[in-house]
């Protein structure tokens, strides 16, 4: 599908160069995503997938060009954005139960002191249920396995009810059941018109997205998922 007029542009990069400090990783990116699109970022280690996600999330400034998120700058769009980074280094001392992590999804909306509403708590419970995480919702996050923790983070993303979701390797540590739940969630988000960007090593996961952006040493390629991924050299 092309750019149908009337559909909101959720993410737009124009001549965007990304990198850390002065070291450019990818140059001159041009692409736009409509509401409800799912985009897979594919590429090897160090190809710039995480850097691009971080730039879109406003964690890194663009080195050149512009990136527009929901019609504004990334840092101005944070309230309508959900971000799932790679959380391997979660502080084991932090006295947080799994459910407390999902509750953080409402911190941007409820501000410093407004209590979470009863319906917020319901959304949190539903998200935990969706990822079959209710059984360990009251356990300290530090006592969960990597896969259980990833389910909790995915529940957080779902509970965030964002317009744009950015996820870095969302399948990491998930068992088959977890991956299946993730796949269902992705379909549901797509149906509901949520735009999703996923950085992934997993080509099957990438194929579940309708758009793909391949980042490689010789440049980048953006387009319909099945077309771009078909041309990909089989490096896995």
């Amino acid at each position, binding site marked *: 599908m092309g750019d149908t007029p009337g559909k909101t542009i959720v993410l737009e990069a124009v001549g965007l160069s990304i990198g850390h400090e002065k070291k450019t990783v990818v140059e001159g990116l041009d692409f736009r995503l409509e509401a409800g699109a799912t985009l897979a970022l594919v590429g090897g280690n160090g190809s710039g997938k995480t850097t691009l996600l*971080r730039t879109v*999330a*406003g*964690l890194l400034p663009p080195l050149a060009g512009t990136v527009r998120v929901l019609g504004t700058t990334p840092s101005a769009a*944070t*309230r309508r*954005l959900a*971000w799932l*980074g790679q*959380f391997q280094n*979660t*502080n084991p*001392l*932090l*006295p*947080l*139960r799994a459910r407390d*992590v999902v509750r*953080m999804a409402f*911190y*941007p909306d409820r501000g*410093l*002191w407004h209590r979470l509403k009863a319906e917020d708590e319901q959304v949190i419970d539903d998200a935990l249920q969706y990822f079959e995480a209710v059984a360990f919702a009251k356990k*300290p996050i530090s006592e969960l396995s990597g896969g259980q923790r990833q389910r909790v983070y995915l529940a957080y993303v779902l509970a965030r009810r964002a317009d744009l979701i950015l996820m870095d390797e969302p399948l990491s540590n998930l068992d088959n059941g977890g991956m299946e739940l993730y796949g269902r969630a992705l379909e549901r988000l797509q149906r509901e018109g949520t735009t999703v960007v996923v950085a992934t090593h997993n080509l099957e996961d990438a194929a579940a997205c309708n758009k793909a952006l391949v980042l490689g040493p010789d440049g980048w390629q953006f387009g319909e998922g099945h077309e771009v991924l078909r041309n990909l050299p089989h490096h896995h």
Partner: protein
Amino acid sequence: MDVIQPFLDNAFLRNALGAGMLAAWACAVVGTYMVLRGLSFIGDALSHGVLPGVAGALLLGLPAMGGAAVGSAVMIGGISLIQRRTRLSGDTAIGLLFVGMLALGVVLVSRSNSFSGDLIKILFGEILASTPGDMALQAVALGVTGFLAWLLRRPFLLLCFSPEHAQVSGYSPRLLHMVMLAMIAATVIVSFQTVGTMLVFGLLVAPAATAALFARRMGVLMAGAGVLGSLSVFIGLNLSYQFNFAAGASITVSAVALFFLALPLKHWLDTRANRG
């Protein structure tokens, strides 16, 4: 041996208990974040970085607390300057400033006629000479840091969880970090006079570390650290009174001893939970 009677008999001990407990609760609030975010080294550096400020103020006949405030401002400013201008790690920046400020403090104190006496006063404080005025100031500082910790509990929790997460949730991690450092500095500045720079650090890190072994909620951790800190003050003052030990150091030793007593308890609870 009666552990309550000494406090009923002696007003100076009651004042010491009051000042010590106020310090313990203020330290519990900021110490919790210090332990959770791994800022112990910067807390240590801050509590000793005040030394040259205090020594300078003593030499010039100015209020010690003003000197302490200048000392900690130089410390925080210096650390962030090194971090911004060089590729050296935060640890190195803190270490440089820490040892430099401590040495400068000793150089300044060595000018005074009662060198070791002054140094020991600054390091371990004069808790037995606490006045109601000291306590009033400590109570204000406790109120302010306590209020800030309550007001910013959500962004602070996000910051502890992941600074990037705090940023994506719309908060500035750098600003939050600076507020946290300012809260640690304020606690050090108002507490060191009664309990000393060494003891402030002990109360900042030991009770919070002990509570962190057991707590599963943020509020429980903070309150637990406050109770453990207060208990350390009570035990330390008793030891000091009964056996004529130095008061400030006895409190520090008690706080650290409680941590090492808690370790086997934690181990026992964990093995029991795994078996059950």
